[in-house]
């Protein structure tokens, strides 16, 4: 029983990180059909900046604020410079463009921070493990789950309950009609990239706080997980992203606890095979693909 609760907490923590990652990605996909390969680089840049700031002894709240602001700026800048000219291009073109953006951002990161592992030193009071009876839950896990719930809640409120959210959803659903109704596509683009950047910043800090170390080339792992989560949940809608992220996290924790020791090395392969299996049964993803944010 205790073990089951322990696993559930693990699954929630991993799954909510994936859900966050997927949300940032799916928002942009919903509005402009862009699967952003450069997304992972936003996380890496944020975490690299965090390493720099923490090493200079800047207090944690300020580091978080600075890093997330930076992620927003970076995301809006790439959106405006690299992706805006492709607003009406085919999804394949956008995907390849983002591949190019990833190469450039990665090279810039290597120039700025070097090509060797850096340690993201989080303060020791965040590194503690809470003991509830025989249940052991790391604080980082709780913070991850809590932050994700708050971010997802805020995003839900923004999208569903504000006029701004209605504009974003309208643009995602019917760009031409939204434009006729006086919604400026470029303004929506900036806002969506800003939200996506904020989420990437938060997710980047959570991700690399848990992993501990990173290099300028660490972007691939979060990118792949976010990609798989949005396809698993259903491309282009926020519910799909959350469901897909949680399902992927659950699947990973389930596999690593069920598999015999001999097969543990193959966890990644088995998880991905199961994802492809699920997609075989439901090609549109668990929720179904639709561009309704």
């Amino acid at each position: 029983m205790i073990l089951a609760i322990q696993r559930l907490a693990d699954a929630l923590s991993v799954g909510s990180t994936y859900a966050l990652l997927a949300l940032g990605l799916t928002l942009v996909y919903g509005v402009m059909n862009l699967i952003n390969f450069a997304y992972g680089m936003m996380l890496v840049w944020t975490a690299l900046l965090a390493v720099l700031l923490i090493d200079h002894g800047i207090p944690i709240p300020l580091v978080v604020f600075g890093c997330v602001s930076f992620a927003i700026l970076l995301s809006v800048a790439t959106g405006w410079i690299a992706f805006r000219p492709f607003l009406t291009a085919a999804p394949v073109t956008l995907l390849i463009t983002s591949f190019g953006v990833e190469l450039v951002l990665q090279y810039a990161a290597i120039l700025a921070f070097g090509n060797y592992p850096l340690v993201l030193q989080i303060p020791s009071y965040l590194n503690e493990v809470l003991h509830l009876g025989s249940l052991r839950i790391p604080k980082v896990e709780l913070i991850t789950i809590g932050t994700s719930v708050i971010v997802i809640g805020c995003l839900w409120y923004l999208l569903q309950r504000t006029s701004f959210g209605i504009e974003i959803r309208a643009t995602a659903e019917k760009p031409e009609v939204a434009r006729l109704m006086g919604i400026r596509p470029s303004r929506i683009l900036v806002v969506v990239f800003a939200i996506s950047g904020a989420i990437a910043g938060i997710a980047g800090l959570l991700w690399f706080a848990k992993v501990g170390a990173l290099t300028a080339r660490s972007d691939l792992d979060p990118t792949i997980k976010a990609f798989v989560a949005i396809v698993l949940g259903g491309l282009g809608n926020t519910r799909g992203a959350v469901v897909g992220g949680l399902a992927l996290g659950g699947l990973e924790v389930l596999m690593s606890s069920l598999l015999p020791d001999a097969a543990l090395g193959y966890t990644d392969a088995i998880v991905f095979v199961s994802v492809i299996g699920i997609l075989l049964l439901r090609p549109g993803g668990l929720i179904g693909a639709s561009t309704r944010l």
Partner: protein
Amino acid sequence: MGRQGSLVGMIGPLMVAALVTLLAVVVQGATSGAINDIIILFGINAILVVGFQSFAGNTGIMSFGHVAFMAVGAYTAGILAIPVTLKPIVLPSLPGFLSHVELSTFWTLLVAGLVASAVALVAGFAIMRLSGTGASIATLGMLVIVNNVLSQAHAITRGPQSFFGVPQDASFGWVFGSLIVVVALSAWMKWSGIGLRSRAVRDDMMAAEASGAKRVASRLWPFVLSGFITGVGGGLYAKDLTAFSPDSFFISQVVGVLVMAIIGGLSSISGALVGATVISVLVEILRNLEAGIPVGSLVVQAPAGISQAVLGVVLILMLRWRPAGITGPLELEIDPRRWRVPGGRSRIQLGSTPPPRSGPK
């Protein structure tokens, strides 16, 4: 073009391949073999780009997973080509029947291609059911799966450790001979019913399906053929490198092939060959720049890794200003039957397959 049959359609791309080979021969002669390594690697890259183009060009789906076929081809070729005497040292726990096998170059490459195409068949059966974007991402998943299996199956791959001992026999003849064969295969498929159906599904899925083209099958067979070609390329890569590890075949390998295919022109085989040539030369220049090039009394030196950033920028600019690549949708088409028609259209012409109007939905 389709009406004139797939055999005639092969002539144009084959001539481009012959031209590329001739160019390689001339360069090799002019430098008296000093840059032989670079030329061999260029030929292997050209094969990989043709393999990539056979799938992405015909179906309009971007694949990140082709490196997985390359990896499968390389490991298969490696296991089959290591001399029997060396096998107990390199792979002590290899299953019995494999430890007594040592195949010639031809059979090694053929089996490498076939094994890779078998992987493509199995994976493609599932992946090709997804929408275009979903399929792109699923190919990335396939790459992760293959990478994971290669680095865990210690008995046959040495796991994450370096795989070594492959005899180095990727000669000029084998590489460029294979290039011509795979170009012929790719062109044959492009102008066969399979290729026509897959481009029909790419351009207008609903109309194509209404006309009887099956979506999954139309994407699956190009995937299998491109898996074969990429597997052969991987086999040659193994025979050129002689030592490699699973990490030799991951995302960083995708970059080169992808950029070559896009810059050259994704929708034609001629474009793939042009792109491979142009980018190979560019990368070589940049690599020399990283080492430092003396200009007058100064030495111009670029920071290490500049080629990656340049490729990224070139990719974005190209997509912005010429999304169809250097050749665009043009394919060299030569129709000998027109020779007999007096006053007929010019015999040699650049035909064109329209690029995808909008991306796959």
